[in-house]
């Protein structure tokens, strides 16, 4: 594309490109900053998109780029797939979507390194190029396959239970050291195709093997971590092609992903090591497992009863969980809340940091149903209020209200901050059955005498409740 420019500009073009990259870098930083506050988040995202657009356009003037056929075709195909996926995805499926987009990003970084490795004579590379090519292949490939496994686990293609074999962690550690060794070997002997392909293959395998032993409930943490990896992979690709914009943006994403990962682990009171290597969740966890006494009784309730109790309350707090999301019940929930407010009941939503599938996921789902975000309360804000709450409606949430986290030191979720719903005068749990949640731990709250169970699919139950409220 640079051919069209006058020679005087062509001479300074590389510097001009770098300067415009600098502008794009600034735009990214401001964009990410603005993503940090609800009022400015949308403009932040749009700014970041603008930065990306500028980066792409200006790169097309790079003097190495001589043919545009593949570029145009590639962008058309990619954009069609991206737009279709982004428009069609249900808000509940957001974690899977992020996972798979992320996988493609990591894959692209690995491919860039592979392309660079292929297009030059092996002898043309100096050591530092080979190190960065090797690392880019390694991190990019792990991100690629790891993200697809995470996607499969969330979609249910692959069992959400941890899948392990004896010595799994040791084998993974062995492979990790092996790949790093191969990166090193590649710098000594860049002509060896075998080394290159072994590295590529083992890296892809490592992505699968590191994610597959992790339980479905921990996938958000994994996705966040893989998000960080894909940033680092992009950064490594930037090292390979010597592009500052890639290095900086990749590093920003890498850092952001790490911080989010850390926040998520804290919300679950787990360490990252425990998430990655603990094979936690599914049917494995016991610790504070179901007590085998048989005298536990459950009080089942009916829509009319729930409607009456709520309608004559002063304050109702709704604690939504993933069950609400899978049942797509957020709109009916809003309807119920509106009806209650019309009857003069104060309605608040208490959102646990890890409600839904990712931190903030529940906020997105409720926002989709037009629930204003100033009606949503964080756990720290709502917990002191449960004492003065008449009825708590717990919809499709389990682990985040399980008092075991406070009472049984042996339990896998012991120490996780939870919603103190047991302090309210009455709790009503909307749930399909008495089965334990993702963490696989029985919930004593089910058998509490202040608690009633409202069995059924969250959407059907809420519809019945909405109907019952209309009849009062």
């Amino acid at each position, binding site marked *: 594309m640079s051919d069209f420019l006058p020679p005087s500009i062509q001479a300074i073009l590389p510097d001009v490109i770098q300067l415009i990259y600098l502008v794009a870098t600034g735009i990214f930083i401001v964009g*990410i900053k603005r*993503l*940090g*506050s*609800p009022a400015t*988040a949308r403009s932040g*995202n749009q700014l970041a998109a603008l930065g*990306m657009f500028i*980066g792409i356009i200006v*790169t097309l003037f*790079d003097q190495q*780029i001589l*043919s545009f056929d*593949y570029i145009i075709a590639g*962008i058309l*195909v*990619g*954009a069609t*797939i*991206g737009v279709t996926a*982004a*428009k069609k995805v249900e*808000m509940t499926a*957001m974690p899977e*979507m*992020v996972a798979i*987009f*992320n996988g*493609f*990003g990591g894959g*692209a*970084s690995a*491919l*860039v390194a592979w*392309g660079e490795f*292929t297009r030059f004579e092996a002898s043309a590379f100096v050591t*530092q190029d080979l190190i960065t090519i090797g690392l880019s292949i390694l991190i990019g490939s792990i991100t690629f396959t790891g993200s697809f496994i995470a996607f499969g686990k969330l979609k249910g293609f692959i069992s959400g239970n941890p899948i392990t074999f004896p010595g799994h962690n040791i084998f993974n550690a062995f492979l990790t050291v092996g790949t790093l060794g191969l990166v090193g070997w590649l710098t000594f002997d860049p002509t060896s195709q075998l080394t290159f392909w072994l590295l590529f293959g083992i890296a892809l395998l490592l992505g699968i093997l590191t994610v597959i032993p992790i339980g479905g409930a921990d996938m958000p943490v994994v996705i966040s971590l893989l*998000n960080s990896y894909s940033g680092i*992979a*992009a950064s490594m*690709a930037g*090292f*390979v092609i010597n*592009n500052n*914009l890639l*290095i900086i943006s*990749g*590093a*920003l*994403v890498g*850092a*952001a992903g790490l911080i*989010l990962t850390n*926040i998520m682990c804290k919300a679950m009171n787990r360490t990252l090591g425990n998430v990655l290597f603990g094979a936690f969740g599914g049917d494995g966890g016991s610790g504070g497992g179901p007590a085998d006494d048989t005298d536990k009784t459950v009080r089942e309730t009916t829509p009319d009863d729930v409607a009456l109790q709520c309608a004559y309350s002063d304050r109702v707090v709704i604690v939504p969980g993933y069950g609400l999301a899978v049942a797509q019940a957020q709109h009916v929930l809003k309807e119920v809340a509106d009806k209650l407010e019309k009857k003069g009941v104060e309605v608040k939503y208490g959102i646990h940091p890890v409600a839904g599938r990712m931190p*903030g996921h529940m*906020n*997105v789902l409720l*926002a989709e149903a*037009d629930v*204003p975000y100033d009606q949503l309360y964080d756990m720290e804000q709502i917990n002191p209020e449960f004492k003065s709450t008449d009825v708590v409606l717990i919809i499709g949430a389990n682990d985040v209200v399980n008092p075991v986290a406070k009472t049984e030191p042996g339990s896998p979720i012991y120490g996780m901050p939870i919603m103190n719903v047991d302090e309210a005068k009455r709790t009503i749990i909307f749930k399909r059955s008495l089965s334990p949640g993702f963490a696989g731990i029985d919930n004593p709250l089910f058998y509490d005498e202040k608690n009633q169970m409202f069995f059924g699919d969250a959407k059907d139950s809420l519809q019945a409740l909405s109907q019952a409220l209309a009849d009062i």
Partner: protein
Amino acid sequence: MSGLIFNLFIFVLASFVGFELISKVPPTLHTPLMSGANAISGITILGALVVAGQVDHQIAQHIGFTAIVFATINVVGGFMVTDRMLEMFKKKDTTNE
């Protein structure tokens, strides 16, 4: 200072900027932030453009093409889906009723 070391400086400094930028974000925005940051990691498309746009090596061109497809899915899909999420965030609607 060799190129690698110089790039390493940039990488480390940018990481610190990233930590500072993100550390104080309300939980409400974690999902959109993750998704938005993910879209930015599609910046690797710039590398893909260079690989796909050169004419010296046919196989590398094909690899570059695949890389562009992957990265574009990440970039376009990522930014759009983030926008879709953030569009829904609004304050209590005072114009209603």
